[in-house]
Structure formats: C-alpha cells, structure tokens
C-alpha cells in the first residue's frame, strides 16, 4: 500500500490549548514533535472560550492562594475530582498564565499594571485572567504563534482515525488528509490526545463540529479507560433565539460582571435555588448580593454565581414551571445594572454576537438564555502527574482527559487545565519517547486494516445519509440523556444507540475522497455513538444526583457514590464495559483545607 509516513518522538492529536501547550513542552524537552489537527491552526474550540483563565495570582485579592482555588475546585466538582489533579492545577496555574505573557499574550490590566482578574461562578475571589470576553482567542493565538516560532511541524486539516499499538504499547497513529482524502501514518512511541470534548452528540450545544468525542473513542479502542463519563456540563446560559443560534454560548462573565437572572414574572429566582451545600457562602438578599461586587469581605456571593450545574438546573426548573421567556429561556439582564459603556468594554463579543445574530442590544434589553451542552467532565483516566493513560505511550490532556473536574467544572478552570496538564503531558510524553531507542515499525496489516475501514462508506451503495443518523443521535441524547435523567429514558437511549450503530454500519456517502464532509461525518459517527453509549451506561448506573448528573428518580447525593468512580473500558466484544472504582484518598494535609472556615 502506498502511504505517506512520518517518524516523530511525540505526536499530539489536537491543536487547542492543551495540544499546543503539550507540543511546545515536548519540543522544548528535545522531542521531535508533530501536531495533527482537524481544522486550520488557530481554529480549535479553545478559541470560543470567553471569560478567562482561573489562577490564584492574588493580583486583585491578596487573600487568594492555591489552597482557596483548590477548595473551590473540589467543592465545585462535589468532591469527586481527583484531588491530586485539583492540587497541581491550583498550584501551577499562575505560572502557566505568566508564561503566556513571555510569549506575547496581552491580558487586561489592574490599575497597578498587573494582570486583571474577574469574578466567576464558584470562585471565592476574582481570579480569572482575561482579555475582554475573548480570552480563548488570546490563549490560542499566543500558543499558535509560539508553536510557529519554535518551528514545530503542524499537520492541518488532518484527521486521526486510529491509534496504532503493538504488544499493548503505542506505536503511532493513522489518519487522512481532509483536503485530498489520502492516508497518512505517523510512527511515534508517544501520542498525546488533546482532542477536546463530545458536545456534537447533543442537539443544543455550544460546541463546534470537531467535538465528536474522537479522542475518547480512540483511547477506548486502544485499551485505555474513561472515567466520570456520566458528568456532562450544561452551561446555564446559551442563546435560545433565533433557532439557528440556539446553544451558542453566553459567557458567565455577564453574571460575573453584574448580570442577573430573572423569570417571566421579573423575579430574581436564583435566591429560591440555593442548595444547603453552598448556603453558608451565598447571599440571602438582593441587597447583600449587590454589595458583594464591591465588598467581598463583608458580603456573600450572589446566587447567580453558584456553580454551573446549580444554575442550569434552576433555569430548567423555571422554564418547566411555566415561568420562562417567550422562546423558552429565562432573562439575563445586565442592561438595567451596568452602563452601556461598561458593558461594551467588558463584554464586546457578547454585545456583537447578540446585535448581529439576534438583533438584541444587550446594553438596552435583557438576553434570553437557557442551558446548552458545553463540556464533558469525563474523559481518559490518567495519572495526575504525567497524564499517562493505561496504555504505555498514550497521554491525554484537556477536555479529553477525566478526573480534574469531578462531577462539575467551574468556569475558568478549563483554560488553566489546558495549560497545566498540556504542559505536563508534553513533558511526560517526551520523556517516554526519549527512553524508547528501538522504534517499532508500523505493521502493514494494521495500516491496511485502518485504510479499509476508512474507505468502507464508499463501498456501500444505497445506504443511509450520515447527516440523518447524526441528527437522530443528537435528538436521542438531547431527549433521553440530557440535563435531567431517568432510568426508563436512559434504557430507551441505549436501545436507540444500538439501532443507530446498525445504521452507521450501513451508511454510504456520495462523491469522492477530496474534501468530502459527508465522508468525514461518516467516519466521525462511530466515535459519537461510542461516547453516547459511555455517557448513557454510566449515567444509568449512578443512582444519585451530583454535579453534571441529575437523576429525577434519585434526586439526592449518596454517601456511597461519593466514594465511587465509574470507569468505562472496551469489552472483548467491542461493547462498553463499566466498573466501579474507589475514589483516590485525599491526604490529611489537604483534607484539612475543607475544615477551614468557609
């Protein structure tokens, strides 16, 4: 078989924040490094992150430090986070932010000239380093420019369809150029997955087409495990109108900067939804909540800034109770609370987005918002210090990795996660590769098999259109494994997924291999199905409600489940197997942090 082949020490799959940070670190550790990405460089989903990067730099509040950030993160995740990941994240995030300035990033400043930090849900102090509401763009552009300056090879518009293993160890990856449809293989002892999330399996989502869960699925096929897959974050504020923009993100900064949520009766309903777990640290009256923006010492946080799972559930309940807006959301109002100049300065892209797409002037009227599928907490189970998966040579960082965020991620902790664990993954991947002096050649039969599988949709005629199957999967996940879940619905979802698998096996695509989106989608669908199955199986098994997993039939948290993780692996017959695994024990010196005053 004629095949383009390359040799590297480290191949990074994905060019968002985690992938680029991993590639930079691997390169600087002396590894020959390549980045493979499905889109053009600089277009990865990180670009859509708006609010900021959480890091306890203490620029605005000297009281802030990594212990407070660690505590906020663990509590936001309802204590299911891997403690070691949460610790490393909180400790290292400030250095990762400062380093971006060495590479050209320009954050907004405090009056003293330091990096300004803004308020966000679940964070005790103003902690998010930001650039207006386009922080993700700044992050990706900075890392992109650094990657280019270092001369790292980037394979753009190239999709990985298989991880290659030999004797249970990673030997490389196989994929195709989107432009030509030709195949390409990389021989490398280390592969870092940084492929992002799974949101495209849902109908209403803030995620782009790239979020097919391919990294989750590739890891599973290669023999790695996935943890916490039942936890999917529905961001409380997505656009709801017009229908074509439904799901597009409305940044949490709107609330961090003073915006409030109201129902159709004009009530600030979040005061009715303060859970006991957060009661001590949440304001009880509107007056106290409003004072908090100026004086955090003597007042408690507004309930609009509870963690995202709480706010999303509250909005869902208000709409269900008939107190929603004309288009089925709730009102997010900053117009009546801040000056037009302030709003345009702090939230320029929100202003632009609503003006252009919904003909709403957010400085004059309230936005209509509702929950949208935003982030998967679950992902590849990794060693916290090295991001190594259970397959030697495989690493994962960013959204595709699991454990860091427990059952719910705090806003702002994603960008810092990308940087902290992207760097660690790149370092460990380089170390692993540089120890492997004898390289394993890629096996011809494995390459031929990967090529055959990729071309199969062209061989079938008269089969179904991949777009229809994708639509049906999105509807299934939205209706049956969405924000509120029940046993009968999830069982039905699993039946439908099984039926969809048969339909995917019989897809056919029109046209030829050159830049053919129908074919690309046909190859993405198996990933989306396997991830959908992982989510549904794990969600069915966990009989409690916690973070991004809400069971109508088990509405409370459960002490036994508080100590248990669910781990997905690939069963010999190709199906998804589920096992229970005890949560890692937090050492006493960290446990003490939760005894300290709230």
């Amino acid at each position, binding site marked *: 078989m004629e095949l383009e082949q390359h040799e590297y020490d480290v191949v990074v799959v994905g060019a968002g924040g985690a992938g680029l940070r991993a590639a930079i670190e691997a390169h600087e550790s002396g590894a020959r490094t390549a980045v493979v990405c499905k889109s053009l460089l600089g277009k990865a989903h990180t670009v859509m992150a708006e609010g900021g990067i959480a890091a306890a730099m203490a620029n605005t509040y000297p009281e802030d430090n990594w212990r407070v950030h660690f505590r906020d993160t663990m509590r936001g995740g309802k204590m299911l986070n891997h403690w070691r990941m949460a610790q490393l994240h909180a400790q290292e995030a400030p250095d990762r932010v400062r380093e971006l300035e060495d590479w050209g990033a320009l954050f907004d400043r405090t009056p003293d*000239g330091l990096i300004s930090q803004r308020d966000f849900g679940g964070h005790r102090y103003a902690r998010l380093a930001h650039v207006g509401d386009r922080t993700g763009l700044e992050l990706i552009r900075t890392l992109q420019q650094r990657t280019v300056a270092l001369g790292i090879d980037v394979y753009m518009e190239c999709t990985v369809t298989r991880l290659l293993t030999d004797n249970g160890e990673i030997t490389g990856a196989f994929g195709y150029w989107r432009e030509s449809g030709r195949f390409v293989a990389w021989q490398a002892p280390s592969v870092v997955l940084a492929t992002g999330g799974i949101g495209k399996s849902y109908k209403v989502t803030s995620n782009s087409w790239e979020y097919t869960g391919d990294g989750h699925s590739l890891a599973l096929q290669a023999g790695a495990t996935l943890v916490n897959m039942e936890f999917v974050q529905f961001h409380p504020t997505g656009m709801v109108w017009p229908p074509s923009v439904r799901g597009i993100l409305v940044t949490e900064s709107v609330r961090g900067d003073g915006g409030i949520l109201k129902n159709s009766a004009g009530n600030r309903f979040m005061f009715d939804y303060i859970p006991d777990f957060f009661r001590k640290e949440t304001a009880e009256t509107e007056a106290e909540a409003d004072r908090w923006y100026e004086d955090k010492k003597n007042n408690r946080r507004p309930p609009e800034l509870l963690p995202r799972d709480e706010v999303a559930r509250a909005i869902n309940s208000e709409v269900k109770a008939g107190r929603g807006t004309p288009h089925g959301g709730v009102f997010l109002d900053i117009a009546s609370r801040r000056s037009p100049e302030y709003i345009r300065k702090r939230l320029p892209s929100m202003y632009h987005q609503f003006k252009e797409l919904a003909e709403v002037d957010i400085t004059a009227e309230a936005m209509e918002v509702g929950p949208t599928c935003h982030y998967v907490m679950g992902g590849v189970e990794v060693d916290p210090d090295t991001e190594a998966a259970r397959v030697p040579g495989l690493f994962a960082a960013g959204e595709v990795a699991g454990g860091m965020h427990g059952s719910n991620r705090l806003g702002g902790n994603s960008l810092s996660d990308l940087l902290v664990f992207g760097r660690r993954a790149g370092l460990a991947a380089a170390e692993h590769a540089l120890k492997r002096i004898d390289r394993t050649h890629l096996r011809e039969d494995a390459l031929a098999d990967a090529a055959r599988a990729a071309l199969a949709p062209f061989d079938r005629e008269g089969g179904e259109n991949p*777009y229809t199957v994708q639509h049906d999967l999105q509807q299934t996940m939205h209706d049956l494994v969405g924000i509120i879940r029940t046993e009968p619905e999830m069982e039905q979802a699993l039946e439908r997924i099984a039926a969809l698998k048969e339909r995917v096996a019989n897809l056919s695509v029109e046209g030829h291999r050159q830049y053919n989106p129908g074919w690309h989608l046909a190859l993405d669908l198996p990933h989306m199905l396997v991830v959908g199955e992982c989510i549904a199986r794990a969600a069915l098994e966990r009989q409690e409600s916690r973070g991004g997993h809400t069971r109508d039939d088990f509405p409370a948290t459960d002490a036994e489940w508080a100590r248990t993780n669910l781990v997905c692996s690939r069963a010999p017959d190709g199906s998804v197997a589920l096992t229970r695994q005890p949560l890692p024990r937090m050492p006493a010196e960290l446990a003490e942090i939760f005894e300290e005053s709230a």
Partner: protein
Amino acid sequence: MSYAGRFRVWRGDVTGGDLEDFTVEVNEGEVVLDVIHRLQATQAGDLAVRWNCKAGKCGSCGAEINGRPRLMCMTRMSTFGEADTVTITPLRTFPVVRDLVTDVSYNYEKAAQIPAFSPRPRDADGNYRMQQVDVERSQEFRKCIECFLCQDTCHVIRDHEGNKAAFAGPRFLIRLAELDMHPLDTTDRRDAAQDEFGLGYCNITKCCSEVCPEGIHLTDNGIIPLKERVVDRRFDPLTWLGSKIGRRPRD
C-alpha cells in the same frame, strides 16, 4: 416564516467549476451557513465548506456572498429579500481546493516569516507591569480571528498573484504593527516591514478595514502608524545623520 430561497453556489475544484442553482428552505433568524448546512444534509452531501464555531469567533467560514467577502455564520438571511438569489463563491485571492474551500497556506507561510515576539525581562517579582491604555493598542489587532477576508479583498494580491511573494497582506501588516506597539517587545521590525513584508505596496484604500468582521481599524490604527514609524526611521534627516555618525542608537 419559512420560504424557498434561491441560491447559486460555486462548485468545482482546481481544474474548474461553475455556479450551480439550488432551492433551499430558509427559516426565521437563519444565517447563510445554516442554508449551506441544510444543502449538505439534503441535496449535496459532499459540498465542501470550512466552518467551526458558527458564532463569528474562529474565522473559518469566509466566502464571497454576492461578491462581498463575509463570514457565512454572521451573514443573516434577513439581509436579503425572499425573492433575491444569493450567490456564494469561494474567496478569490486564494487557489480553490474544492467548492467553497480554498488553499490559504499563503497566510500560514507569511505568519511563519514574521520575526517572533521577544520580550524584555520580567520585573524582579516575576511579573510584567503594563498600563491598560498601553496594552489596548496591540489588543485591537489581537482581536483578529484570522478569517483572511482582509487578505481576500486586498487589491494588491486579489488579482496579482505575482505580488504575493513580496507582500504579506493586511493581516500580517497589522501583526507587525501589533508587535511594534507591544509594550514588552524589543525587536525592531521596521526594516523588515518595508523590505520583506511589502508595507510600501499598501496605498491605504481601507478595503481591509471595511470587510473586517471584528471591526479592526487595520489601516487607520495599524498600517498608517506603521508606515509613519518606518518613514521616521528612514527619511528623517536628523535620525539618518545621527545613525550614520553613531551619536544616536539605531532605534
């Protein structure tokens, strides 16, 4: 609410192609990219198009809509009449790959040639201190989403393939301006701007500023100040004399 919209979409590849007529359902609130997606899902499964965020943040879905360079995700169908035929063609400045997808590698090659950011050392406490007013000048250019619509519309390269070698295009001239105005950067790129990136080719017709979906004032705030800085350095007689007799640092 819904109507049957008429569209002409360019289909083809490097060997040639043509406009094809389609009739596609259009619903309230939709943008051109919604229509393209519906076209893919129902009539042309292999229609090639780039897109990612569908929210005007990634700059992937540039095309020429009725001849004007625009992002498909930010062009609302309500800007056209129901009876109008909407024509969608690929960006003309770049070679076609297939249908609405073009080969934009020219931009990535130019990006790689720009001398990298090189900061002054951090303050003693490990921080950098900069005033908001100082970072805002470069921040305007860092808003760029690299949709390359400015490159597409720029007449220096739009119909003059031969100029591409000597001219980096508005996107990269404002990148040079951004670095020039960056409070931390220490590299002087003024000679390079003129000699390697073709700053002199720009005759400030401001077409780039007009098509920028981010509203960046490329010409007024980026390219013209950069031109002035180059002129100061090259043609001010005192600066020139000072640099020749070694009394004035070459700054």
